[in-house]
């Protein structure tokens, strides 16, 4: 690539942050964002001109986040809130702890693995289904189906959680 890297950070910074936050919490997500762009900056001059920059960045970000989750799983250190650092959650706690948002995050976290990844990458990461399919494997159509199933499940589970909450009041 021969264009200024600054444009890449401006254009894709928000998407990469969404992906990092979908996989890690708080400071860890911020660190993953920085690590992603630092290693992208290193590799930028050698990236082929026809590469899909967004998919490339999301791949780096996912790898960074997975490395961090694996590292944490290996060195299980006692922390105040183990929910923040478990090696399994693909979705992190919402920044603003509104009860409803937390319910949504929990509902997303409860989805089957493939649906969860597709929902996170497409609806949170903003990636088109073609790119999502390239990342999770399978066809565009399969990714689209997993996304639709995931959202349908969310409508049910999240809707139920909200209703429960309102009933409890």
């Amino acid at each position: 690539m021969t264009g200024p890297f600054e444009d890449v950070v401006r254009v894709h910074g928000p998407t990469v942050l969404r992906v990092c936050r979908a996989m890690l919490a708080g400071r860890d997500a911020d660190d993953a964002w920085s690590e992603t762009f630092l290693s992208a900056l290193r590799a930028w001059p050698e990236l082929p001109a026809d590469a899909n920059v967004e998919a490339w960045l999301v791949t780096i970000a996912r790898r960074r986040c997975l490395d961090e989750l694996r590292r944490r799983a290996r060195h299980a250190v006692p922390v105040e809130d183990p929910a923040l650092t478990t090696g399994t959650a693909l979705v992190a706690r919402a920044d603003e702890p509104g009860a409803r948002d937390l319910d949504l995050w929990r509902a997303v976290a409860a989805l089957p693995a493939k649906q969860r990844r597709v929902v996170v990458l497409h609806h949170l990461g903003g990636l088109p289904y073609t790119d999502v399919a390239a990342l999770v494997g399978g066809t565009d159509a399969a990714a689209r189906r997993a996304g639709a199933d995931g959202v349908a499940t969310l409508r049910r589970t999240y809707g139920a959680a909200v209703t429960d909450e309102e009933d409890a009041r």
Partner: protein
Amino acid sequence: MTTAPQAAPAAEPDGRTLALLHADLVERAARDGLLDVAYRVVDSPVGSLLVAAGERGVLRVAFDVQGHDAALQEIAARVSPRVLAGGRRLDPVLRELDEYFAGRRRTFDVPVDLRLLTGFRREVVLSLPDVPYGATASYAQVAAATGRPAAVRAVGTACARNPVPLLLPCHRVVRSDGTPGRYAGGDAAKATLLALERAAAGLDGGAGRA
């Protein structure tokens, strides 16, 4: 001179977070030797200026009328695409530009990196500081000073292609009839700079030499 606001991504819920992350990224890139080019866009009496520097010195000063995007693309293509906005590297040159526009500085001390220029053009722009602050020289005089009196037109081209105007003062090179002539930053900018230098030099002369 103030730093122009960074273009925050619109409609993004945590634009502030992204700005902080960006600043941190620039710092880490500099620490890891990955910040090949740092740039900033600042306001000045001759319009907004893009100032870009590599590790060896200032690579580019570009006026708004020249197109900041085009200047960045050229630097990215010819120097390195590892280009980021911000960082401490530009503090010294921006301070010197501030002092210059305030009439408190006559020569620039920050190193320049002229790798965007080669051959005779490079020779010409390097000779520009020989024209004293507050004075002017004709294109013919500069051509003669570089030992090629017939190369008047080439001197004009070299001045037009000067990658670091202001720091290397191509604005002091004028037509033989004394009219200012063309300028990469626009005719008005050239007139502003010459007037600024004359005024500052005159005031300085009236108050006695420092």
